[in-house]
């Protein structure tokens, strides 16, 4: 509730998050048309299997922004509390400190899900009206993919308490994710060693599967392999996040870092 209140009291930020996926997609669309010329659509079809450039890109854009919100906001949540001076107040309460982070995460996941729903549903309803049902099915991929993203964000949350540079870390990570997760192109165009990294990021599977379901009419059964991988990530990454968070939290309580900013 506190996080939601903060978001609504900074409406400019919310508007920016809604507009960003659309702005990036328009920008890429224009670049693609410029570079590809009159055959741009044909080239795009050859590489992706679809001519629906806008939906293809908006799916990547929206997932990237969602991940950005979860990782940046959650990764810097505790740091922001440190700067405000409220981190210690929160840590004085008789609650599990990791659960405090979970609470913040849930608020940001709700916010980013609203962004996704607003942008994606709006776009798909206009450009691919027949795929609305498929979109609803594809949401399952998204929900499963959010759990490991929370785990990754928890690692950063701990790191920023230690190193006190949240935006440097989270921005770098978000840009790397945008490149390797196939946000605006299929992962197959990347070098094979980069694809190994791509396949360790949950976002890659979410973007790929949503495109396969909405644009290529694949079913959840067709993608069961990806679901197994996402399921394993949904277990492993939060555990990793918990480990790192507790480790850095313990260090902060030894060094007195909780109040420093």
């Amino acid at each position, binding site marked *: 509730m506190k996080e939601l209140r903060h978001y609504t009291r900074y409406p400019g930020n919310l508007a920016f998050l809604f507009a960003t996926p659309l702005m990036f997609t328009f920008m890429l669309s224009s670049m693609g048309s410029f570079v590809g010329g009159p055959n741009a659509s044909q080239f795009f079809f050859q590489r992706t299997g679809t001519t629906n450039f806008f939906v293809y890109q908006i799916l990547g854009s929206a997932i990237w922004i969602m991940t950005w919100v979860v990782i940046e906001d959650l990764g810097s949540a505790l740091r922001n509390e440190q700067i405000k*001076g409220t981190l210690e*107040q929160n840590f004085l309460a008789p609650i599990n400190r990791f659960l405090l982070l979970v609470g913040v995460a849930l608020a940001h996941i709700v916010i980013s899900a609203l962004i996704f729903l607003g942008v994606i549903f709006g776009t798909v309803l206009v450009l691919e009206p027949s795929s609305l049902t498929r979109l609803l099915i594809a949401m399952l991929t998204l929900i499963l993919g959010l759990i490991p993203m929370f785990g990754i964000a928890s690692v950063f949350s701990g790191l920023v308490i230690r190193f006190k540079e949240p935006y440097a870390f989270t921005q770098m990570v978000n840009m790397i994710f945008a490149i390797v997760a196939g946000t605006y192109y299929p992962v197959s165009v990347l070098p094979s060693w980069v694809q190994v990294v791509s396949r360790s990021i949950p976002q890659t599977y979410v973007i790929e599967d949503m495109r396969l379901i909405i644009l290529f009419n694949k079913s959840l059964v067709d993608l069961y392999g990806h679901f197994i991988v996402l399921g394993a990530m949904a277990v492993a990454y939060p555990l990793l996040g918990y480990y790192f968070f507790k480790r850095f939290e313990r260090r902060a309580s030894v060094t*007195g870092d909780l109040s420093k900013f």
Partner: protein
Amino acid sequence: MQSLSKVFETKEGRIFNRVAKSITAVDGVSFTVSEGEILGLLGPNGAGKTTMIKMLCTLIQPTAGDGFVNGFSVVKKPEKVRENLGVMLTGERTLYWKLTGKENLEYFAALYHMDRKESAKRIEYLLDLVGLKDRADTFVENYSTGMRIRLSFVKALLHNAPVLLLDEPTLGLDPQSSRLIREIILELKKKGHAILLTTHYMEEADQLSDSVAIIDRGKIIAMAAPSALKQSVKSSDIVEIEARNIQPEIVERLKTFTDVLDAVALVNDSAAHSGVIKIHADKGKEVLPSILQALVRRDIGITKVSFVEPTLEDVFIELTGRGLRD
């Protein structure tokens, strides 16, 4: 607290030439605060008061020793300790400025697992207690400093914990608000709360505390009731000389005089170097003429001379040779 210590390990120096350094913030401190008692921790800035409070409220891990809050160990059972503690940390930055006063308290009440109806009543009562009822729905960013500090104070009282840790509760408050806070603290004591209070205002420690622990450089150097502490310096005369153009060298010179036990300059206007020179002497009336002569020779402008009753600051001066504000 039982022999509680805290050593901070830091590194200083340039990026490829950093040297490890240890800073002992708290050194083997022990004390007990019972139900219905107030213990004041009095000491200058940097003495270790806040570090002690933070160890007791589980924000910092002790290096050695342990602390117990209502029987729970801060090292082994930190969550139980936090259930039994109400804590006010220094400063106005402990609140969410984009929430209202009431929303802040609602948020923290939820963190303490308080029932909604119960917390609503409690919040209304507490806001009224400190005169913030009419401003409950105003964003904290629009509060004055005094209002934020009062809100921070009642935040510590939300869940009615048996033990209260109050770190400089009146710092930054006007005299009227300070008086209000002190009255509330005395009421809480009567209701049976055990209260540990840190302050560098000796008048506050004197007025509120059943016992005062004087802290310097991480150690408790004296602990007793305020009257007993002041009695310990009553054997000497305390001369207060209000003056302008106070020079540090003259204070050192005064310490060499026969019968002068100690001297300290408390400068409150650094531009004019004016303030008070406090002198502890065995036979104050006999040594006073030579003291005044020495001051006049150095062009120190004397405005008032008086013999005063000892205060807790004088206890500190006697024990450390420095003032509380040094």
